[in-house]
């Protein structure tokens, strides 16, 4: 199953700390060698300050070896540094401890008045923010994500958006929120970050490459939010498919994201219209990236090869099962994919034998019949079952020319009326102005 695993590709665009959940997941799935995974973890940890965790993993990897001296030393060093940094920002920490002040702060309009307020009453200096930022980073490196979140929140309140640290504060906050699994605020941060990146292209010196990189990171990090937040499945389509910048970034930098986009579109029953656009993109990128999920869509909507689609659906299940982000929507996916096959089938056919349908949907005939009956009962399908022959007969009748005509003319009167209304309003507005002029 390793061939469809994207962890190594995704890893390039994720923060060290964000990779851990993925690795944890992989070790649970046992598709890779356990020791290799542990080694990878250790390697990632070596650059962070999570010494204790590193020591743990070392013990797992080499149970017989002693913990090396330098790790212990580093641990002491880290603790000392932490102390030092904390000393520096003592006033701020005090402020933060005071709930009332924090409440006041939140009500402040902009950072300038806030800074004035703080420096007047609480011995606050703007230089401290720098240290606070450092401390937050340090905390984050140590794995104290929630502490770092609150520090960074403070930073965000105080710093003006054109500060050089502002972007890194945003990223830090976003990462911490993801790691503490606080999806609501993570989503908020995600939107803030996206706005920041999109609205200030000059921030990156007009360097489109850097901009592209930022977007690519954002795309990857946001996956955590999109597949965990309730609204995520809507938002992922909006952001990835209908924001040209992001779609471009996906196409040029990371076509593997198409898997997540495709999954999101498939499980989103309401937005079937997105399918067409998605299929276009998938076809365009088919030479750089393909996996069972994109192939499934291709089979179903480009080639109308139902056998192929069925096969791919089967493969999809195992891919989804082994994907950190997608495992939660496996059932939904299968259900919707079946429905899609069936819908397409119905649109083309007027008479289907249940046996064949069952085969196409990876079900046994009775189950399939039951499923169809449910569909018909829920009025999502205009069809009847011929139980003697074992057929499903579609009830849909072709549009007669008369109906077509009616449909075409249907909206005309409404449109004309609105048009007239608009013109009337404009005329009135004009005369109003004239009246107004006469007053003076």
């Amino acid at each position, binding site marked *: 199953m390793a061939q469809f695993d994207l962890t190594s590709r995704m890893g390039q665009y994720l923060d060290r700390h964000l990779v851990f959940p993925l690795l944890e997941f992989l070790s649970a799935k046992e598709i890779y060698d356990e020791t290799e995974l542990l080694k990878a973890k250790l390697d990632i940890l070596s650059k962070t300050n999570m010494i204790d965790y590193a020591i743990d993993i070392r013990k797992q990897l080499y149970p017989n070896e002693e913990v090396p001296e330098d790790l212990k030393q580093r641990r002491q060093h880290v603790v000392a540094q932490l102390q030092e940094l904390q000393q520096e920002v003592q006033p701020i920490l005090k402020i933060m401890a005071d709930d009332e002040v924090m409440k006041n702060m939140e009500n402040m309009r902009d950072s300038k008045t806030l800074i004035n307020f703080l420096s007047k009453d609480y011995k606050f200096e703007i230089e401290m923010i720098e240290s606070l930022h450092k401390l937050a980073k340090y905390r984050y490196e140590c794995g104290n994500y929630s502490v770092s979140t609150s520090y960074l929140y403070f930073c965000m309140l105080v710093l003006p958006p054109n500060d050089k640290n502002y972007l890194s504060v945003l990223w830090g906050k976003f990462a911490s929120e993801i790691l503490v699994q606080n999806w609501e605020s993570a989503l908020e941060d995600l939107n803030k970050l996206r706005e920041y990146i999109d609205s200030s292209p000059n921030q990156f010196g007009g360097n489109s490459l850097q901009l592209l990189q930022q977007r690519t990171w954002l795309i990857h990090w946001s996956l955590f939010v999109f597949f965990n937040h309730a609204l995520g499945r809507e938002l992922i389509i909006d952001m990835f498919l209908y924001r040209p910048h992001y779609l471009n970034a996906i196409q040029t930098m990371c076509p593997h994201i198409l898997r997540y986009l495709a999954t999101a579109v498939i499980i989103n029953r309401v937005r079937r*219209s997105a399918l067409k656009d998605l299929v276009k993109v998938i076809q365009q990128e088919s030479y750089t990236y393909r996996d069972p999920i994109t192939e499934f869509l291709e089979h179903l909507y480009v080639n*109308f*090869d139902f056998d192929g689609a069925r096969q791919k659906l089967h493969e999809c299940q195992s891919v989804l099962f082994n994907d950190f982000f997608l495992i939660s929507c496996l059932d939904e996916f299968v259900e919707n994919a079946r429905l899609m096959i069936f819908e397409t089938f119905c*649109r083309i056919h*007027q008479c289907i*034998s249940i046996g064949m349908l069952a085969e196409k949907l990876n079900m046994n005939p009775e189950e399939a019949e039951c499923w169809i009956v449910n569909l018909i009962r829920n009025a999502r399908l205009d069809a009847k079952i011929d139980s003697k022959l074992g057929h499903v007969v579609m009830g849909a009748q072709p549009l007669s*020319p008369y109906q077509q005509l009616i449909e075409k003319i249907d909206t005309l009167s409404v449109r*004309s009326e609105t048009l007239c209304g608009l*013109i009337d309003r404009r005329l009135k507005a004009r005369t109003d102005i004239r009246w107004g002029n006469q007053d003076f």
Partner: protein
Amino acid sequence: MSRFFAGSDSDSDSSSEEEPIQRAPAPVFTFSDDEEEVKRVVRSAKEKRYEELTNIIKQIRNYKKIKDMSSMLTSFEDLQKAYVKALPVIAKEESGQTPRFFTRCLVEMEDFINEMWEDRDGRKNMSKNNSKSLASMRQKLRKYIKDFEEDIAKFRENPDQPDDEEEEEKHEPEPDTQTEAPAKAVAKISKQIVDDEGSSDSDDWPSDSDSSSDSFDEDEGKGTMRERFLKKTGPAHEDDEERDRRKEERRKERKEKERRKVKKEDEEDGEGEWEFVKGGIAIPSEKPKMFAKDAEIDLNLVIKKLSEIMAARGKKRTDRREQIELLHELQNVSDQHQLGPAIYVKIKFAIISAIFDYNPKVSDAMKPEYWMKLLERMSEMLDLLLSNPQLFVSESVTEETENLEEPPYKIRGCVLTSVERLDDEFTKLLKECDPHSNEYVERLKDEAKVSEIIDKTMKYLERTNAPSELCRIYLRKIEHLYYKFDPRVLQQKAGEIPRDLYTSVQEMEKLCKFIYAKDGTDRLRTRAILSHIYHHALHDNWFQARDLVLMSHLQETIHHSDPSTQILYNRTMAHLGLCAFRHANIKDAHNCLVDLMMTGKPKELLAQGLLPQRQHERSKEQEKIEKQRQMPFHMHINLELLECVYLVSAMLIEIPYMAAHEFDARRRMISKTFYQQLRSSERQSLVGPPESMREHVVAAAKAMRNGNWSACNGFIINEKMNAKVWDLFYQADAVRAMLTRLIKEESLRTYLFTYSHVYDSISMATLAQMFELDKPVVHSIISKMIINEELMASLDDPTQTVVMHRSEPSRLQSLALQLADKINNFVDSNERILETKQGNFFSRGMNQGNFRGDRQNYRGTNQDWSRQRRDHRKEY
């Protein structure tokens, strides 16, 4: 040497054929002139000034004869100056009266110019330079002559009166009217003898007429030399008459020659001949000057000599050929004395630029022998530069900081510019040749050498590592690389040869990426991208090529770039189209090629030849510029192939579309060119079997319209078409197989569109059999048609048939539908008007009939558009 001859040497710019005639008698004349010089030791100021004037007048006469306007203009300017100089003398000696010979000259010139001006045909045939000079000459002369109006009037009253100074009847006022020449010549000769005995100064006048007539004689052969001596020693009327007669004949001949010359100015053989004669004089007279025999030759001396030679560069009187030889000699001298690599390079530079200078016109190609020399020198120099890391050649080195004596050497100069010039010359040279001759092939063999030189330069420049220079040389390299097909690339793709082999695609990748990253100018990058795309397309890397096109967004900006880049863009699009076609992306192929083919002049757009012009669509200059832009033949793209690919893809798109929308009022043409072909064949009352490629495609289209795929296939793929078109593809069989498949599929679609109304149901197995397609393919095609609502039918799974819905509207119904459509349009346009009135510009409807727009933006914006349209619907 007399000044006259020195002067005439310098006018070789005009490179006329007459020059051998004039220069030929030189040895004889130098001899006779020397004699005169002895006599002329003591002269008065008057004599000196007058001699100057007469010399110039002589020149003017000569130019008049050969109609060399530009030289005449300069001489005329000299004359004015000389006359100003002579003014004090004239005031003293002649009591302010203008000398008669001077007036005569002015009158003659005026007449001549007027005559030339009147002769419109002649003027048209003149070279650009000459006609320009003629115009300015006319202006200047008019102005100048005003000062002498009185004298001229006097002169015109009595033109035959002898010159007051010379007391001699002279030339006819108009040199071109020869009828009265014999009589005058007789008089002249007799006078001349008297003069010879009398004043030595007066010699100048008759010697003019002598020199001109002599020169004609010389042309015929040495035998006539006798005549000259005869003439000088005694009166020989018969001889003179005979000579004048001959002169007349020759003049006619010459005129004819001149006319011919104008027509084919660039003809080589005339020049070759000229050179041969010239070599005789120039070398013996100049060579001894090189170094004094016993001089100690060291670096400084050589440098001095070099700068001496180089100082003459670009001057009017310098003999460029001689300069090259001198430099070569200097090279030998410095080699013999082993003066170090720096001076070697320095001299090489000088030689190279001298060779470049040799050709006075930028638009003309060099002569092959100089080209060969240039190649050798260039590669010698580069070898030396490469083997000698201590040589530093740069433009930033000034004359003062040059260091030729010890390492690290510093030399002023720019290798890159020379190499670029060399490359340009090579292209010119190729364009000069007839592409179907052996000569072209011979020249093309030098391509390898040029590439080698560029490689060497690359290596050399990589040492110095200046990004902007590297970019330039890389682009040169790219331009030698991009159009060449490397079969190894495809073999590598097929896995026949190992992955790590370095093919041209990788090389292109490397060079282009460097330029993308380092280039500061937009032009180099644009050209690099286009070449890169071209190369990818050539090697069937369709996706890479397409992505590069889309990412570069060149389609939007290409209209603002220079013509040669636009040509490259057109070439790139042509190949991209071919590549798309090979990949069975018919729509893309059509889109790529439609811009080229729609205009009907792909030949011009690809710079592969000029169309015959209609009613002076372009001026001479324009034509010249356009000619310079043409591609050399070996880089041409086969136009027939291009057109065939375009027509076939248009057929594959258009025919099913036509069948589907047979009664649709809003049907629009996809390909105008294809329609034209179809219509023109329909107009014929009798259609014979197809002959040309176009007829084949049209016949195939007709067969396809009837759903007859095998006939269609037979028309597209047969012996004739194979030889003409398909065999030009690298993997022709694959392309043919692809075509057959597509023809079957599209024929099936057309068949279903056309004949669905006669069927109630049709079995898929039958269809598969009819079109020899696999059943899943038929199923897939029909499903697609049903989903897209092109075919009003549905499948019946248990019986494997297509059941038609028979919902085709009756005539009344379809008319009603059309009416509804029209009303819809009407309301739409009303809304649009209101929108624009409100200043709310929508790009709605932009994509109607705008295929290109679709293509250009199909990565990002297209989705936007469709969304916009959807949003609109919601509003209503």
